[in-house]
């Protein structure tokens, strides 16, 4: 495991932290990691506590489960409770609370809700049970949307008429823009998302540098990747540069995955607007099926309430998703809201900032408090 050791090498980490400390000097920098996978790495490895005082990481909206608003969960449950429907979903989404419980509870009440690993599994169920209608709860950024696209085209090509998609795919650029427009937050740069960039590439992020004057470095998921991306951000600021740079060249290419982008264009079009948990309505921020694929669109086939539901008052997922507060600053964190009984979405997914902090981060924080390094 030589390769792995190189990326976990404590000496290399110490050298990077020393460099970050030198670059930061006496100034204060606030960087947002957009991607839930990065949030997970940061808490898993206690990265925020090895960074100098002047470098703060705030967590962004890049957890696809976390950004789905309650109203959409209610809509999903309404579809799932339609007689004759088999409703299929990734496991994470089953526990996301709507205003009257989650999909697991709908299942307990008698709805036929099934966990699937892949949209292809949902299509297979549709083929095997032609007398029932099968709906797939599609969520995720441009990372997962191509898989839904392939599945819908496959259903069309096979002539499967009892398969539909309840589409909640969202796009990565509009929430970044919304955060840059938000008066709550002053950021000095971004750690660009990893997997989603394998699809969209680095070019869509240019507006961050060109229109908002903030540097962005696409980063990998290893602790050293995160530290290296931070040094790249600081180097840009110190050199007076403002660019989109790619630290994760092992996987991400500037042009992304042209085949996947072509599939997205073939299957989806932008919705005029879509509600995001914590960020409100953002125009052109989500995908729906194109009109020629309307036969596969569950929203057209079923009566969905489509009602906007306000988050529970106690829940501060919105502020967490915007990076305005840290998970432990939420009033219900770890008491009323835990991974076992989540109130908010950020506590549901393992990539949610609250769940990641609950599972790992608080231990690092306790250690840091003991050492007098808490923040």
């Amino acid at each position: 495991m030589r390769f792995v050791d190189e990326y976990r090498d404590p000496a290399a980490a110490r050298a990077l932290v020393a460099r970050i400390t030198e670059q930061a000097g006496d100034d204060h920098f606030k960087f947002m990691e957009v991607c839930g996978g990065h949030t997970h790495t940061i808490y898993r490895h206690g990265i925020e506590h090895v960074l100098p005082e002047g470098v703060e990481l705030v967590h962004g909206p890049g957890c696809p489960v976390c950004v789905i608003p309650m109203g959409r969960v209610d809509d999903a449950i309404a579809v799932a409770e339609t007689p004759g429907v088999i409703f299929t979903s990734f496991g994470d989404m089953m526990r996301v609370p709507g205003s009257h419980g989650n999909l697991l509870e709908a299942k307990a009440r008698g709805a036929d809700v099934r966990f699937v690993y892949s949209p292809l599994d949902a299509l297979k169920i549709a083929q095997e049970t032609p007398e029932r209608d099968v709906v797939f709860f599609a969520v995720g950024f441009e990372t997962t949307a191509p898989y839904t696209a392939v599945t819908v085209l496959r259903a069309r090509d096979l002539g499967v008429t009892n398969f539909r998609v309840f589409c909640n795919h969202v796009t990565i650029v509009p929430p970044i823009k919304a955060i840059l427009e938000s008066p709550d937050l002053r950021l000095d740069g971004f750690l660009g998302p990893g997997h989603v960039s394998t699809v969209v590439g680095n070019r869509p992020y240019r507006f961050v540098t060109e229109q908002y004057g903030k540097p962005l470095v696409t980063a990998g998921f290893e602790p050293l990747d995160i530290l290296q991306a931070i040094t790249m951000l600081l180097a840009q600021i110190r050199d007076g540069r403002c660019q989109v740079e790619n630290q994760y060249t092992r996987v991400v290419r500037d042009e992304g995955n042209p085949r996947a982008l072509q599939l997205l264009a073939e299957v989806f079009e932008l919705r005029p607007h879509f509600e995001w948990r914590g960020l409100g309505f953002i125009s052109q921020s989500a995908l729906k099926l194109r009109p020629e694929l309307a036969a596969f669109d569950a929203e057209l086939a079923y009566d969905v309430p489509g009602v906007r539901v306000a988050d529970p008052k106690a829940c501060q997922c919105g502020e967490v998703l915007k990076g305005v507060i840290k998970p432990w600053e939420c009033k219900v964190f770890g008491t009323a809201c835990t991974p076992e009984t989540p109130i908010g979405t950020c506590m549901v997914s393992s990539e949610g900032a609250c769940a990641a902090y609950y599972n790992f981060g608080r231990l690092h924080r306790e250690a840091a408090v003991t050492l007098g390094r808490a923040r």
Partner: protein
Amino acid sequence: MCLGIPGQVVELLDHEHLARVDVSGVGRTINIGLLEDEDIQCGDWVLIHVGFAMSKIDEEEARLALASLQMLGEVYTDEVDALFASPASGPSGDGRAP
């Protein structure tokens, strides 16, 4: 839900962009259609996400990804179990993706 599991391609199937991959010693069938332009060959490593090859990676990245995933413990084993249980990703031959 964005966990990518590394797997090594052991056989390219003629059928609809499918490939047989080895994931921690277990054979599964995945869809490699999104990597059409990458000229995937036997022996290549890919990152697998919900039954699809998400990206072509080198052996170094595969080892890193695997080591990171193993640190996750339950989250990782749940994801691998889900892949192994997925009907559309069944073992080579039968259970091929629809």
